[in-house]
């Protein structure tokens, strides 16, 4: 393994074929990315795999994020992680949930089912221009909530969230996996 930067000479066209992240110019092969160079001796190919390939949200991915803004009927989620095929990736973006996609039925105010700073798990439903999320599935929803009076973590009691310090009950669209922050995913 060798780290190479764009424009670095890797080999000649007589020896190898430029694979991913490499290009040929005038019989010589150069890197087109910054990353680890690997030589596939079987297929005579030189590949350069960039260390951090930016991951982009696709429909069907799951996102874990924090509610940063509620501007009825839109809720803004600052996403932190993206889950695809059981693998978790760091992913920072501004994603949106519309009030109609929170409970699956009519909701006049998004803030009835979601509060600021709640941690939510959601599914990506659209990536055209903006990234839209949905909380309609039972496993999606708030996975960690805070009391809106004292900001201490809430506990799930029956179908509601309870603050044992204020002895108050709050309503959220909770995930069936409430409180399970580590979902047994590998990085």
């Amino acid at each position, binding site marked *: 393994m060798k780290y190479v*930067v764009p*424009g670095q000479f890797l080999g000649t066209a007589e020896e190898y074929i430029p694979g991913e992240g490499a290009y040929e*110019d005038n019989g010589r092969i*150069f890197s087109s*990315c*910054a990353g680890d160079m690997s030589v596939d001796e079987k297929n005579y190919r030189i590949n350069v795999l960039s260390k951090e390939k*930016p991951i982009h949200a696709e429909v069907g991915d799951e996102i874990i994020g924090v509610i940063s803004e509620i501007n009825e009927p839109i809720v803004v989620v600052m996403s932190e992680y993206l889950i695809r095929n059981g693998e978790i990736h760091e992913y*920072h973006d501004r994603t949106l949930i519309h009030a109609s996609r929170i409970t699956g039925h009519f909701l006049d105010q998004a803030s009835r089912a979601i509060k600021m700073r709640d941690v939510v798990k959601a599914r990506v439903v659209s990536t055209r221009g903006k990234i839209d999320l949905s909380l309609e599935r039972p496993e999606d929803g708030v996975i960690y909530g805070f009391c809106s009076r004292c900001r201490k973590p809430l506990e799930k009691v029956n179908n509601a969230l309870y603050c044992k310090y204020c002895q108050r009950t709050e309503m959220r669209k909770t995930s069936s996996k409430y409180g399970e922050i580590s979902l047994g995913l590998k990085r």
Partner: protein
Amino acid sequence: MGMVSEVKLIDENGLRIDGRKFNELRPISIEVGILNRADGSAYIEWGGNKVIAAVYGPREAFPKHTQNPSKAVVNARYNMAAFSVDERKRPGPDRRATEISKIISEALEATIFVEQFPRTAIDVYIEVLQADAGTRIAGLTAASVALADAGIPMRDMIAGCAAGKVDGKVVLDLNKEEDNYGQADVPFALIPRTGEVVLLQMDGNLTRAEFEEAIEMSTKAAMFISNLQREALMTKYSRAEEREETKEEPKNGNSGEDAHE
């Protein structure tokens, strides 16, 4: 430019106003990956210049009519902060910033494999936080490192430098005083591997011999800056390696304890 020089810009020993020789660069430092929201980013300090570059994309180009079905469009935006110069600059794009954005976009398009990403846009934002002459080249240098950090395939990282004429002498890498009171300024950028010129402008007048001398000095300087760019990327890579090693260590420790139990 063209103003009558009242201060002597080159003294009798041949040293410039900041003590440099005629072919000496200002100190340059480049840092990679400073913004965690951007796909790629870089920060450059070039003498008194402080510039941040951020890269986003390739992503779907909006509005849709800007999409090119055969290649990606490179949108560079050069912007000077209001506080970047001595007297407050009116914020927003002006005639100068629009021109610089255009030439930087064209320079970057020459090195990126744009044909690999049809219908997309690659957005490059260059923010000048502190200006001290030569910001377009500093911005372009940072932008090409940021592109490499974003993993966008390209032929080579663009490097460049400005040269000019001060007190009748051709000098490298003008500073603010020399830029304001000198006779000419030639920003220049090239693809180091092939020597193809991707950006060349001239403000003021030079004779042919002077121009060739300026280009020769800039080319040498660009090769040096190209090495700095590579080193900056390597530094980020080695840091990432270190972090990964430290991450793995506690894991090994745990498994050892388990075996003991």
